[in-house]
């Protein structure tokens, strides 16, 4: 892929406020294409807030205000000309708790393509649903029951269904907000394996509370603390040779 190694998401001096309270201060970082970048940090440090700035989910909160620039594929996403809906088709999101629609498995995956008119025929739609489910490593488990409700799957399957739903609309970037925190270790392992596969085609940003997970899946790691980006760099460097004392304390379990 020609985008390999390029900067996919770029943030410059991002400040986020909830009313009068500042949640993020001067965040500047660049996320490379086709890499997995993990955001770690103690609860309330702003990592999820920052993640939600990248697909403008924060706009749903009336009192939330974002300053600074965030560029996705070179485009300033807070520019007036950018439509939030179009942005979210390019920057998909997987949530902490699996949230499939209370519809059939097929409908769950097809919904995004349907609303964006991405397919021209029923058979093409079916093909792409199958393709998305295969890439989410779920096809073999659900191919015989595509018409059954997605809510009837197990937690891990539901989360993979949500991933299939997200990749079906072919985003450039996939944001994952603690995607495995509600899952057991086996389901978590499957998700991590899947993330590994998906980085071939997507840029992935993952928020996680598990440092082992960050170490396992990501190439880049950003450590957030109290609304500041403390340290950002190669995952191996962050975990083996942290520059900042706070990072050191966090990864050794002294704060958090």
């Amino acid at each position, binding site marked *: 892929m020609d985008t390999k190694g390029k900067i996919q998401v770029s943030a410059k001096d991002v400040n986020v406020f909830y009313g009068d309270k500042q949640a993020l201060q001067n965040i500047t970082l660049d996320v490379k294409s086709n890499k997995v970048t993990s955001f770690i940090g103690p609860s309330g440090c702003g990592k999820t807030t920052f993640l939600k700035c990248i*697909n403008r989910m924060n706009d749903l909160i*009336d009192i939330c205000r974002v300053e600074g620039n965030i560029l996705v594929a070179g485009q300033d996403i807070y520019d007036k000309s950018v439509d939030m*809906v179009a942005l979210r088709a390019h920057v998909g999101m997987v949530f902490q708790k699996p*949230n499939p629609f209370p519809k059939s498995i097929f409908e769950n995956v097809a*919904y*995004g393509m349907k*609303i*964006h008119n991405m397919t021209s025929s029923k058979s093409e739609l079916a093909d792409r649903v199958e393709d998305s489910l295969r890439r989410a490593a779920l096809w073999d488990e659900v191919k015989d029951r595509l018409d059954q409700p997605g809510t009837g799957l197990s937690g891990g399957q539901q989360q993979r269904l949500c991933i299939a739903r997200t990749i079906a609309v072919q985003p450039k970037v996939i944001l994952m907000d603690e995607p495995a925190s509600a899952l057991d270790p086996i389901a978590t392992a499957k998700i991590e394996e899947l993330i590994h596969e998906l980085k071939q085609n997507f840029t992935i940003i993952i928020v996680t509370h598990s440092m082992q997970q960050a170490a396992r899946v990501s190439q880049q790691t950003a450590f957030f603390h109290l609304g500041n980006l403390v340290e950002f760099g190669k995952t191996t460097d962050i975990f083996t040779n942290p520059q900042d004392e706070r990072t050191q304390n966090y990864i050794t379990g002294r704060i958090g």
Partner: protein
Amino acid sequence: MTNSFTDITPSLRRRHARETRFKWMGKIAIIIAVSFLLVMVGSIAWLGSGALKQTRVQLNVHLDAAQIDAAAVADANYGKLIKTALLDRFPEVTKRRDKKSLYGLVSYDAAYALHDRVVAEPGLIGQDLRMWFVASDDLDMLIKGNLETTGDENRRRFSDKQLGWINSLKEEGAIKSVFNVAFFTTGDSREPELAGVLGAFVGTAFTLLVCFCLSFPIGIMAAIYLEEFAKKNRWNDLIEVNINNLAAVPSIVFGLLGLAVFLNVFGLPRSSPLVGGMVLALMTLPTIIIAARAALRAVPPSIREAALGIGATQIQTVFHHVAPLALPGMLTGAIVGMARALGETAPLLMIGMVAFIVDIPGSVVQPATALPVQIFLWADSPERAFLEKTSAAIIVLIVFLILMNLVAILLRNKYSQRF
């Protein structure tokens, strides 16, 4: 009793006793509520069951060719023919007073029934016709056992002489009870034996149709806008407070509003289901809006995030995902609102739906009355026979309510989704 668990036994016994007491209080409360319900429904059913029967009297009418002009069959005096038939049956009756009470045995509808029959079959003229006629309300009550037949003659509806006539008719089999079809197929009447509930039933159906068509879509749209789109600011809070207050406004105030605005300003037809439905819609709207907002709030935010997260617009999110999940709750609100509208009398009094209306309304702009108003009117009538009509109309109202709720519940089950 000693075992290794006895250390907290004293307080445990007290706690268990409290639980047992509470369970019993709950059971007693339910028993009281159910017995009230049974007494109410039972007494109404018992009183109203009489209205399902109608008493008929058979008379032998001589269709005297001299009385019926073959060229103008419809204009003949059929009342006189009925009277003659009664006098022929009881030739001993000669006094004016007695004649009058003899005529009172059959309903005044008898003349119309005979008229219809002869007009339909002019060939009958000149012959004797044995025909069943509707009995008067007093005779009907007597046959149903609702009137005194002993004791002081002056305080009874029927004198011994009249009872004698009736007994002689009974003996020859000229009095029978039939199913009262007319009660379900005719409109109101001043004569209890002829009064039917269909006019009020159709009026209620039209009124509720108008009410539903206005209040449900407007209520749902308002709720969706307020809950999903409107910004949370002071205006929004003000609107919310006002909607909650409107839900508590006495219904007669809405009737006055309807009178002042719909009738006097817009000049819409008085006594019509259209205006009735509009007034009831105003009354029902706050209930529906409040219930629909609660239903929307109960939809987990994760569903909204999921849809928005893959690029659905807000309106797609609401109509594809949120509203379908909230629909059962919305329908529940609509059921509550419509049930309240169904039983409402006061606002309808204000807009003239209390009038005595015989004709069955054919559209929403024709004068009509509604079931609760009909019950009110009948309960207000002095005739003994209206008592059972009142109860029967209440049964019809309850059946209407049950059917309406059944439809809503079926719809709700059909559209409900898990999440």
